[in-house]
């Protein structure tokens, strides 16, 4: 099973077209393994991206260097998926 330990989902808020362009160039770098849940299109739409643990720090530094604001939407994706699985198992064992 694919393991998402340490993967974070960042919600990035670009504030100008230049930052959108920077994020688009990031999205083109397929070798980083970034998974864009919402893509960089305009300053009115936040960009949500899943970032593997191995590139998490370099990406955060890259965002800071480019003065791009972000918040952590999901701290550890595997924790959330484990919780999802636990809830599914618990509920399926309960009487309807």
């Amino acid at each position: 099973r694919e393991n998402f330990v340490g993967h974070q989902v960042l919600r990035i808020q670009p504030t100008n077209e230049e930052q959108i362009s920077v994020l688009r160039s990031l999205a083109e770098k397929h070798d980083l393994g970034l998974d864009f849940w919402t893509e960089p299109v305009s300053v009115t739409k936040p960009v949500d991206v899943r970032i593997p643990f191995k590139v998490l720090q370099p990406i955060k530094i890259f965002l800071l260097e480019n003065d791009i604001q972000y918040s952590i939407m999901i701290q550890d994706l595997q924790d959330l998926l484990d919780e999802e699985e636990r809830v599914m198992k618990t509920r399926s064992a309960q009487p309807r």
Partner: protein
Amino acid sequence: NTDGYDYANYHTLNEINSFIDMLVAENPNLVSKIVIGQSYEGRPLNVLKFSTGANRPGIWIDTGIHSREWVTQASGTWFAKKIVTDYGRDPALTAILNKMDIFLEIVTNPDGYAYTHTSNRMWRKTRKPNSGYSCVGVDPNRNWDAGFGGAGASGYPCSETYRGPYANSESEVKSIVDFVKSHGNLKAFVSIHSYSQMLLYPYGYTSTPCKDQSELHALAKKAITDLASLYGTQYTYGSIINTIYQASGGTIDWTYNQGIKYSYTFELRDTGRYGFALPANQIIPTAQETWLALMAIMQHTYNNPY
């Protein structure tokens, strides 16, 4: 039976397929199952047909073509039960079903959905291998024959938005295309995704407004207003290219170009905290509010024959 089905929980593909069979068995005069094709890995592409007579115009609804969007397939299951529950009780739905058929494909990408339950919860695409690449799958919402290969889709098989080698290369897409063409009388087509809270109409591959834009825009506004009336969930709406981004090869651009005027695509709830791992306790609220918007679109379709 389907009364005992846990609509507030996520379910595997087998459980959803069992639900489909139960629903048909419980409502033989209203519901039937059509298999419109099979997926790359050989799974049936099941469509529920809700019908009260022969030779009716139809409304199509599909949920969860991107496999990881679990709240979408879960909402589709709830819609199916809602239709059989409300028929004969809700005058608006009853009137629609007395004149039109509703087709509902709950799991549009079964290989991908099964894969999210067994191997990779965050999988999005189909599961067909790409010759010469280790990366598997095609984005089935870039694989339709509407501006196929244009901007807003990737030609790189490892991209999440890989369009595929040619239009309709994915059996999950081609099967719907064949069904739509053979039916020939679909009047509305609603393709439901998650997440980001949007209701979108054509086009995505071009900035040229579709000829029915003003009507589709007004109906979208009505639908999202109805949706928001339940829990206050705020949606944005508009054409795909103006509201979200340029995307070529998309589902509803193709259906609209086939003459299905009321072609819409939804993006369901986004709490801004969980992404595709939306907690199961949000399934029913999501389905309930979305149903109000679906009813707005279906009623408008019923009231405005063309």
